[in-house]
């Protein structure tokens, strides 16, 4: 029997505000344990929260980027449960009236646009972290308590692990584009839970939903979905039934285990947070936040592939990366060279440099203008492509203008016929054996001679012209 798979995601992303959601402690990753804490985020008796306005604004911005309805009035609610990393024994979250609802995110899968429904986005506080690596005792680091989060809940609109993965990558880059989250997976600043249900192929009735928690990376989300899909497929094919339950994913073993069944589902006893007033979102706030939303990755990807003819795999490297896309778009807008060559520079030497040195584009000396100048210099044959690599390294490490670098390092390409003729004649007379080889049919000897000319000219000779004149010279002599 064939089954259709339906996948929904709940993604938590930490917002990059300067302070926490309910107090003025810094929202900072990597500090020594329990140093970014105060009576409010530690849940001390009598301490009361204050809602950080920026958290609300970022939440609204995320909602607008995902085409959500923004609630004019929403409120915070208490979600009550005991856990040592939750100092108040309740999480201040949003239950009944989320900040944003009913949106969508378009993703591009195999060159087809797929629209994934967003059920809701709400704001809430993060919990602390338990540290188990200290002998028999469990220690608690409360630094993360009160770090602001948005939770994005999708509709079960994804049909494969590949779609889920594409959704996660796209969402991550959207949140980075609108500058509300760093989405640093390695710091846990973006995490997700996964829901999977299977139903007989073609059936309109969704199957029983199984939720999986403890997923720490997009790649483990992929594995968890595939594992769960296979598990349910096997069960259903054998005539079994799926129980509504929450399972814990163990990435190292590649398996999931039952955490909670429907019978002992947690009752969080939600009620309106009495310490905080209702959240009122005005049209002014919405208009302000809308102004922060640039063209989003999927739209960029579509534009790059259709308008510029850049292959999907290459275009996505740029389109999903806010820095690279910014560099690319601005350099293209200079109108001095082809988008294709700018793309090649960015996904080639620039990306390699960034990866090797571990920095971002703003940390380098290159600007969109200088990148466009570089492309122009190559396309108009002012410099050779090998000289261009030298210029690029100068730009990345030191900055400056392309023209100045070419002059200073004397890299200008020489296409002068007279100069190249004499260069070619010199190389021919110095390499008679290769000339003999060539005339005896070893055509690859021509490449060797071109290389010798380039070397002799310190890379400045126009290689196309060198090759043309070499051909003429070698063939002319044969004629004599």
């Amino acid at each position, binding site marked *: 029997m064939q089954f259709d798979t339906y996948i929904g995601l709940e993604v938590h992303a930490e917002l990059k505000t300067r302070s926490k959601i309910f107090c003025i402690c810094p929202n900072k990753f990597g500090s020594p344990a329990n140093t970014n804490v105060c009576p409010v985020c530690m*849940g001390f*008796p*009598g301490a*009361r929260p204050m809602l950080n306005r920026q958290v609300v604004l970022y939440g609204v911005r995320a909602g607008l980027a995902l085409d959500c309805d923004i609630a004019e009035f929403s409120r915070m609610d208490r979600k009550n449960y005991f856990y040592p990393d939750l100092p108040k024994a309740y999480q201040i979250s949003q239950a009944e009236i989320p900040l944003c609802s009913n949106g969508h995110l378009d993703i591009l899968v195999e060159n087809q646009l797929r629209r994934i429904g967003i059920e809701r986005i709400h704001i809430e506080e993060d919990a602390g972290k338990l540290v188990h690596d200290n002998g028999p005792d469990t220690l608690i680091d409360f630094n993360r308590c009160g770090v602001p989060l948005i939770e994005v809940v999708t509709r079960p609109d994804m049909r494969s692990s590949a779609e889920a993965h594409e959704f996660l990558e796209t969402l991550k880059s959207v949140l980075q584009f609108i500058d509300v989250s760093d989405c640093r997976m390695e710091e846990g600043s973006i995490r997700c839970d996964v829901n999977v249900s299977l139903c007989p192929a073609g059936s309109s009735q969704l199957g029983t939903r199984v939720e999986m928690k403890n997923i720490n990376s997009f790649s483990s989300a992929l594995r968890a979905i595939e594992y769960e899909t296979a598990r349910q497929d096997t069960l259903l094919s054998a005539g079994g039934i799926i129980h509504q339950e929450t399972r814990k994913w163990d990435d190292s073993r590649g398996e999931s285990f039952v955490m909670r069944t429907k019978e002992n589902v947690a009752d969080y*006893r939600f009620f309106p947070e009495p310490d905080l007033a209702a959240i009122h979102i005005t049209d002014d706030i919405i208009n302000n936040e809308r102004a922060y939303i640039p063209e989003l990755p999927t739209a960029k990807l579509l534009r790059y592939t259709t308008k510029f003819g850049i292959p999907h795999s290459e275009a996505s490297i740029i389109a999903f990366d806010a820095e690279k896309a910014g560099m690319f778009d601005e350099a293209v807008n200079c109108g001095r060279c082809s988008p294709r060559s700018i793309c090649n520079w960015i996904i080639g030497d620039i990306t390699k440099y960034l990866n090797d040195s571990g920095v971002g584009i703003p940390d380098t000396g290159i600007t969109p203008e200088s990148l466009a100048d570089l492309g122009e210099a190559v396309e108009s044959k002012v410099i050779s492509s090998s000289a261009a690599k030298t210029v690029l390294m100068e730009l990345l490490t030191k900055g400056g203008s392309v023209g100045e670098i070419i002059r200073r390092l004397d890299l200008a390409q020489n296409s002068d016929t007279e100069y190249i003729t004499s260069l070619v004649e010199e190389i021919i007379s110095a390499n008679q054996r290769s000339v003999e080889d060539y005339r005896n049919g070893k055509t690859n000897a021509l490449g060797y001679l071109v290389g010798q000319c380039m070397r002799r000219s310190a890379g400045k000779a126009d290689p196309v012209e060198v090759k043309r004149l070499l051909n003429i010279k070698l063939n002319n002599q044969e004629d004599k």
Partner: protein
Amino acid sequence: MKLYEYSAAELSEMLMTGKCSSAEIAYDVSERIKEAEPAVGAYITLNDSMLRDAELIDNARNRGGLPHPLSGIPIAVKDNISTAGIRTTCASRMLSSYIPPYDAHAVDCLHRAGSIVTGKTNMDEFAMGSATDTSFFHTTHNPIDTAYSAGGSSGGSAAAVCAGEAILALGSDTGGSVRQPASFCGIVGFKPAYGAVSRRGLIAFAPSLEQIGVMGKTVRDAELLYQLISENDPMDPMMRTCSCKHSSSLRIGVPKELFDSTIVSDECREASFSALRLLETDGAVLTEISVPKLRYAANIYYVISSAEASSELARYDGVRYGHRSQNAAGLESMYVKSRTEGFGDEVKRRIMLGTFVLSEGSREAYYLRALAAMRELRHELDAVFDSCDIIAAPTYPRPPFSANEAQSATDKYSADICTVPANLAGLPALSVPCGKAKNGLPVGIQLMSPAGAEQRLFAAAKKYEELCGGFAQFRGGSGYAV
């Protein structure tokens, strides 16, 4: 006459004119504490440095600082209001050794004005109760007759002011916890409007209802302390300033639901009426009004306040501070045993009640219905204030009862019917003594106004205080009362 017998306003005047020093006042109060405390039991923890603090204030005054009227005045602080460096127990075993790392905003106001903190007063555990007999430490007795209860939950604060163990006191009022003990002890108790005083540092059990309140021997004293602690606090987002236009006439609404003879004892009803008749002779206009939802006020209150308490008190889990059971093995057992050992019966009762009313299946029937009924009550009260300036009612439906009197929880709960409406609607409410019951203890009358119209309350209460000849008569001068 001993200095502790004076009002804060009188002492303030004496300090300004050099007739006494803060150190002298503090000395008299501390001697009085030694004398009265064994029989009254108003305090849990005394401020060891009270006399030294007073000397520092005198020095500062001599250098020309401290212009505030309450500088150098000894003020007692209820033990659920955080004091940095002084243990703050909420009268619970759970917090019996908890020392807050920060001051409540109200305490901060006292410090900045140069007031002297006498100590931390006894209360019902976590402010749940109306007799200061659920305290982990001891029961507080009424200084007028120590066979009687001082009321609660701010019974320690009320008894301290009544006995001269402090000149003024801070209490907290979730459902009457300032007003009821004030009425039992023959003093003035004021619960500010919701949002008029910062709640930062108040260890609330029902934060949507709770306010820090003030107690003093006179209306003026209560007003002075209220003015001091109602300073704006940018760290309490629920603070708000309301203003109502001043009205020169005084129209007093008398809600028939809170004078109903099936609810209120004859003694209390009569005492309230005699006070109202006195105000009537001065030109006040009395109007009978009806606020039907008042009948359900106590029911609404106990559902909502317990719901919030179940959440608010969940943080006492033994993990970071407070009592941690030494007999626990594992996390779950640590939670259960720490809480079982750390909380008393009344607190457990309300946590269970609150957990129940919020749980799946009973939420709609209890919590959501109570919320809806509270909204209706608010609307009804709003409407009533179109035709009257203030509402009057007995503070408590019966005279002070004897200390350690056995009462069922439901009897105790339903007796809060007169005080809880002000909390449910966020209104300012002031209780002043208005008579003596047959048992010789005082009873009080309560005045409520819209938020922002506190001045109406103080003005009417001062007028009554003047007309009746002062409140000292209701404290009777017997026992330890002054």
